[in-house]
């Protein structure tokens, strides 16, 4: 399955979960949230393996601990005359990862072939944006390497040196990516014109 159909299926699954599990009746339903969590973990393992799952947990676990700690703190002060802040935080400790993974898995399932199969009108925009973000990343990494090895940007304390390098990177990236954007749009239109005149 590709293109618009795949996009519609993925977005309706996400909307369905958010409608029922985040802003809907099953927000505090532990069996429901628990089974969604198990499903997300399995899918995440299948798509990105242990490494991907470890990266997620490296972010999720500290955040969930902060959430529960803040809940206990608010309970201690009986904020807004409520005493269920910790209990609510524990609920969020299940809902937040599910909402986080549901969107991540949906977005991660999209491929360039899905964009190519899109209707012609939106196809050019999505393809160029996908191409530009993919192409500009090594370009900006290369610019950063050049900035970090520029002889004029080697002196001063770490914070000043990093600040100067970042300002130079932003200024250089502006014009470099502008040229890249202009050239990529030109090459795309030229190649499409070439192919439309010579269907192979």
């Amino acid at each position, binding site marked *: 399955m590709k293109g618009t159909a795949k996009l519609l299926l993925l977005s309706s699954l996400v909307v369905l979960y958010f409608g029922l599990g985040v802003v809907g009746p099953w927000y505090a339903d532990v069996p429901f949230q628990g089974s969604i969590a198990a499903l997300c973990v399995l899918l995440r393992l299948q798509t990105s393996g242990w490494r991907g799952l470890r990266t997620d947990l490296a972010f999720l676990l500290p955040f969930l601990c902060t959430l529960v700690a803040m809940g206990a703190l608010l309970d201690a002060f009986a904020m807004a005359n409520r005493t269920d802040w910790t209990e609510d935080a524990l609920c969020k400790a299940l809902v937040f990862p599910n909402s986080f993974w549901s969107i991540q898995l949906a977005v991660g399932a999209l491929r360039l072939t899905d964009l190519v199969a899109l209707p012609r009108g939106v196809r050019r925009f999505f393809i160029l944006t996908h191409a530009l973000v993919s192409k500009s990343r090594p370009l900006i990494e290369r610019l950063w390497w*050049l900035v970090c090895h520029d*002889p*004029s940007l080697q002196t001063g304390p770490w914070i000043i040196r990093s600040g*100067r390098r970042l300002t130079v990177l932003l200024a250089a990236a502006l014009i470099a990516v502008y040229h890249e954007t202009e050239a990529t749009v030109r090459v795309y239109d030229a190649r499409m014109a070439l192919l439309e005149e010579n269907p192979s």
Partner: protein
Amino acid sequence: MNSSGQSTHPSLREESLQHEDPMLLGPWEIGVHPPGLTYRIPAISLPYGSRVWLSGDNGAGKTVFLERVLLPRLAAMGRQVFLVAQDLLLQAHVMAAVLASRGQRAPRCLDDLVMAWCAPARPNSILLLDEADRHLSPRTIHQLLELPLAFVVAVSHQGRPCTTTHCFTICRHETLVHLEIGP
């Protein structure tokens, strides 16, 4: 400056001593990952003022040698290294932004931009040119080779200028890359 004309300022005194020394390179056996190449560089002593011309076929590993083998080792020796990269059209944006951060307006012409960017080079600085003749005029290449710098190493596919003092070739056999004296 003391009465005998010898500089008394520590860094100036260090600089004036340093830039007379020859540059000692190698012998090195260095693995570079990625792209998974091993560089075998013999012991080389380059007198002050050497102008080295480096050639080699497409994909032999010239750029990786300049950027990942030579440049880090020169920087570790405390040298100020000016690298004019193979993707000079991209690097030009960094050069222009660096000139702006020095309060200077960046020239439009690439040749003038590179010369302005190299202006703060000191007598013991080193200049590395990676296929600069693809973008810069022969006159600018000549001017760069003539700059009063400790050493210049230039990589190119094109003909070797007469002002160069040494010529090396990068040869690659599968993942082993070595440096040969002469074309």
